[in-house]
């Protein structure tokens, strides 16, 4: 049972990574539930991250699918100079573990590295950290109800968008 869940979780995480790598944002958006929480906390100091998004700052905090749709709308708008020349990105997801499981849900932790080439600026960078996914089983298969991105190298060189993490 746990073994199957691990395979399902890996398949979903790898699929998510691949969709971001290829800029297939419609399919990426389709992976999330309507009431998804998408959260990248900031750092309070060298060792602690912010914990309460209503009282502390996050790098990104969204509750609700339409917020993610707005992000994609901006990237595709043709009106954002930061989004004009797409960055080339590769997501590598590893160390996938199922940390909790019920009949129709699972908590999954993993590590990520995202290598980027900012072609416009002639610059490469690597963002890395950990993911925490809450998955729920729906009629369409597994979907992401909550995604936490714990970015370790949080001094952002010029920009970081949803495809960078």
């Amino acid at each position, binding site marked *: 049972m746990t073994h199957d869940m691990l395979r399902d979780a890996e398949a979903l995480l790898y699929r998510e990574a691949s969709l971001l790598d290829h800029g297939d944002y419609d399919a990426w958006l389709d992976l999330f539930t309507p*009431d998804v929480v998408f959260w*990248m*906390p*900031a*750092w*309070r*100091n*060298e060792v602690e991250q*912010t914990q309460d*998004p*209503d*009282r*502390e*700052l*996050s*790098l*990104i*905090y969204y*509750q*609700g*699918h*339409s*917020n993610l749709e*707005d*992000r994609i*709308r*901006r990237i595709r*708008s043709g*009106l*954002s*100079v*930061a*989004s004009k020349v797409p960055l080339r990105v590769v997501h590598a997801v590893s160390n996938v573990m199922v940390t909790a499981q019920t009949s129709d849900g699972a908590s999954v932790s993993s590590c990520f590295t995202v290598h980027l080439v900012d072609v*416009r*600026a002639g*610059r490469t960078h690597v963002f890395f950290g950990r993911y925490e996914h809450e998955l729920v089983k729906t009629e369409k298969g597994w979907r992401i109800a909550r995604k936490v991105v714990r970015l370790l190298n*949080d*001094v*952002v*060189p*010029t*920009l*970081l*968008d949803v495809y960078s993490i």
Partner: protein
Amino acid sequence: MSAYRISDLIDDRPENGVFRINRALFSDPDLFELELSHIFEGGWVFVGMACQAENPHDFFTGFIGRVPILISRSGEGTLGGFINACPHKGARIAQQLSGNARLHVCPYHSWTFDSAGANRNIKWKNGGCYAAGFDRDNHDLARIPRFGEYRGFLFASLNNDVPSLEDHLGEARKLIDLVVDQSTEGSELVPGAVRFTYAANWKMQLENCSDQYHFTSTHPSYLRILNARAQEQKDEVVQSTLGGSDFWKEDAEGPTGGTYSFANGHVLNWGLMAVTPALPLFERADAIAERVGTARRNWMFNMRNLTIFPNLQIAENASSQLRVIRPVAHNLTEMQTWCIAPRGESAEARRMRIRQYEDFFNPTGMATPDDTVVYEECQAGMARQERPWLQGHARGLAASVEGGNAYSDSIGLFPQRSVLGQAQTCDESLFHSYYRAWVGRMRGALA
């Protein structure tokens, strides 16, 4: 002495209606070194907030130019500004960004200092066979020559020969008051600092904060989302403070805002905004008016981008941000940013402020990356050219008048110059104040 004369770099001829800046100010590495010495290490700079070291023995660290500093609150509760370097061999005695320590022990040879900077121990002093000259030296942490606080905002100068902090800030103090007086308890920084870099000169950020001209052309992707959100009114997305205001729209009628410039390089760019629930401050609108008067309350709701030259910016527009500019190289700048907020606001107001902040101000949001990418595009064009003079400091000059106007009079604010703007004025002449302060600090280094 640099090869440049000031007149090669800044063409300031008000009598001819000319103000031009040479691209070299953004692209010359030698000039950048002079700026570090004379602007950042040669005069008053912002170093942090008193609330970052609230309790006895709290401290935080940072830099003034290239010099590491330690701001520490003593056991008696007095804030002090020190050079964060051991007098012995120079090691930074505090390595953390912030913390609480009665004693700071140097990691190299354990020289020890208390939270008031006094040397409390030199390891094996008695057995050290020191000659008499050593005992005549002061072994305490070096104090930053000038250090002062204005209503929780801390400033310091490595150069002792500067005017008082009160004189340095001048009239701009009244604009800091508009931030602090939003609560009877003053301002605080929301936990969670955000840092980012961009590969361009620090003055790109200095100017952009007070550049109304770029808003509709750099951020149309964001503005389009604001409009859609205002129409859809979904609960799950945050509404913008800017949605209900016209000051930035090209077809707005009548005065929409303007600029004020002050002595020593401080400037304000502002836009008229109504007292509406789109701002988290709205819950206290009546109480604030009662406490500080309607005119000052109304000003607290206006869009206000304040720069305290050379490195502090407080932007109250889409939310409320405190920014510190840290120049790293002529073409690299680090920004340290916080959400600044009135203490004691309701949980709902705070949540709204934070959401509005993240969307607009974060380098991971939907507006700032378009700014920082544009800075880098500008930096590319700052390379030496046949036409060295930029044309970006000219708008508004014909509308610039000495002194203030009815809006500044209403709160007893007396700027050196002002421009009252229509929707498409988008004054650039307020930047002149930056560069005149720049000249003031660089005068000794340039002919």
